[in-house]
């Protein structure tokens, strides 16, 4: 455990050292650009003053290319395939054709501002001005988050199928290697998440979903904390991902809901009739509850992960903001920024686990509630 922590701290320090390099480097850029105002047009990005908010948002949202680093005017990034469905037609090309959002290709370009910022929009015949009237094409591109999603899912498959084979080959032996790290987690999901929520009788049916969701969230939370290539995508802090996860919980809850569950929603026992009859107040409230439960699941995971990334990036931005005022202020602030960054990263390790736990626990509780056989209201009507 301590070795692991030390390792992550070392990793963090190495990363912050990289940021350091970035600070001094950023300064040279500004001085260079200030010194030569007649710089070519493509240097405009260098001239643009550092905007912390924009930098942070760029880091936590999805992108059509996987940006690794920018050195001078050289952008090192992995171009990803763009897949569009425009007016029923399938259009595919590499995002490298956009030249990091600077150029249009085949009548499409990346929007730089406004409501559609970061999205692929259509341009007019001149190949520059956005076509304000055209509808946005449906974007099924393999974006940074999609790649990250695939990587994490392949990782999940490789890890768990390999340890499953160990269970098959050596059934009655003590766990070994990766198996001994993951088995306590699997047992944790079973004994502290599934069984308390669903009971011993029903839990086995939901284990595949709960385990997949738990490890998917947990792995992606951890991968999101690694700032370089295979990690670094803020996948669990993306609302689309949490939306789908919450939808799974919602759909499963709806399908397994028994008679009691629906009676409780539309005709809650123990509630005075006038709360139900002329205006169906209670049914509305209960029905809203059905919707808000998965909605809250979605927002909780999204907000927690995104907030962690924003805070961490905010600390890093402080270095650049102060460094722009005075280079020594930048170096001075970097000490505190790194200290807080290390602290936040360690906290995020904890949050990564807690969020995976909370999401799966609540899912299992919702499933358990939908399958509850009898109502407390029937047994203790006085309580209501």
């Amino acid at each position, binding site marked *: 455990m301590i070795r692991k922590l030390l390792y992550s701290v070392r990793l963090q320090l190495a990363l912050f050292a990289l940021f350091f390099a970035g600070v001094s480097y950023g300064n040279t850029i500004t001085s260079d650009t200030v010194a030569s105002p007649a710089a070519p047009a493509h240097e405009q990005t260098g001239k643009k003053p550092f905007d912390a908010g924009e930098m942070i948002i760029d880091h936590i949202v999805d992108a059509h290319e996987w940006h690794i680093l920018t050195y001078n005017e050289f952008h090192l990034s992995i171009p990803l395939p763009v897949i569009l469905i425009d007016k029923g037609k399938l259009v595919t090309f590499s995002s490298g054709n956009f030249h990091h959002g600077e150029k249009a290709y085949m009548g499409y370009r990346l929007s730089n501002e406004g*409501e559609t910022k970061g999205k692929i929009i259509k341009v007019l015949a001149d190949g520059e001005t956005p076509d304000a009237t055209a509808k946005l094409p449906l974007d099924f591109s393999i974006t940074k988050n999609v790649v990250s999603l695939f990587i994490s*899912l392949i990782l999940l498959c490789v890890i768990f199928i390999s340890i*499953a084979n160990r269970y098959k080959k050596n059934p009655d032996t003590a766990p070994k290697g990766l198996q001994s790290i993951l088995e306590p987690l699997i047992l944790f999901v079973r004994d502290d998440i599934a069984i308390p929520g669903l009971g011993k009788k029903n839990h086995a049916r939901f284990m595949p979903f709960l385990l997949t969701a738990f490890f998917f969230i947990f792995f992606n939370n951890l991968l999101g904390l690694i700032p370089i290539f295979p990690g670094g995508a803020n996948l669990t802090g993306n609302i689309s991902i949490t939306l789908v996860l919450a939808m799974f919980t919602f759909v499963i809850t709806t399908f397994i809901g028994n008679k009691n569950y629906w009676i409780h929603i539309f005709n809650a026992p123990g509630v005075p009739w006038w709360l139900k009859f002329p205006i169906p107040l209670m049914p509305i409230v209960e029905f809203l509850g059905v919707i808000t439960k998965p909605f809250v699941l979605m927002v909780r995971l999204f907000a927690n992960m995104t907030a962690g990334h924003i805070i961490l990036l905010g600390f890093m931005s402080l270095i650049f903001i102060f460094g722009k005022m005075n280079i020594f202020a930048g170096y001075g602030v970097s000490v505190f920024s790194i200290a807080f960054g290390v602290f936040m990263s360690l906290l995020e390790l904890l949050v990564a686990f807690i969020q995976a736990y909370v999401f799966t626990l609540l899912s299992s509780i919702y499933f358990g509630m939908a399958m509850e056989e009898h109502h407390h209201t029937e047994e203790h009507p006085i309580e209501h």
Partner: protein
Amino acid sequence: MQLVTPGIGLIFWMLVSFSLVMLILKAFAWTPIMKGIHQREETIEKALEAANEAKKEMLLLKAGNEQLLREAKDERDALMRDARKMKEAILEEARSKASEESARIVENARENIQFEKMAAINDLKNQIAAISMEIAEKLVGKELENIQQQHQLTEKLLKEVKIN
């Protein structure tokens, strides 16, 4: 705005790939893992139960052994006691027999002695009678010359007679 707007592309890929991976993992990972864990738990539980049972049996066996040992000891003691008794009885019997025998022997001897004595006495009596007869014959044969001589002769003869 971009931050909180779900994108159709990501939703689509997530939905498809997550469902697929969930099914794959269900078939190739979760089912065997849960089965493996369950099986191992059962094995451990059974092993523990068996160990407890064995312990109990051991205790029972131990108690049985002790009982057996105690019984064997008791039996041995009883046997020893019996043997001792028997020995004593035999000794006693032998002793009494021996004393009886010796008594009988002594009695026999005494009887023999008595008998021999009686025989001797009878013999003596017979001899005395014979001697007396001889003497009487001699006396009668000599026709007694004088009383003095007679007396002397009797005396002499009597002296000759020796009672063995």
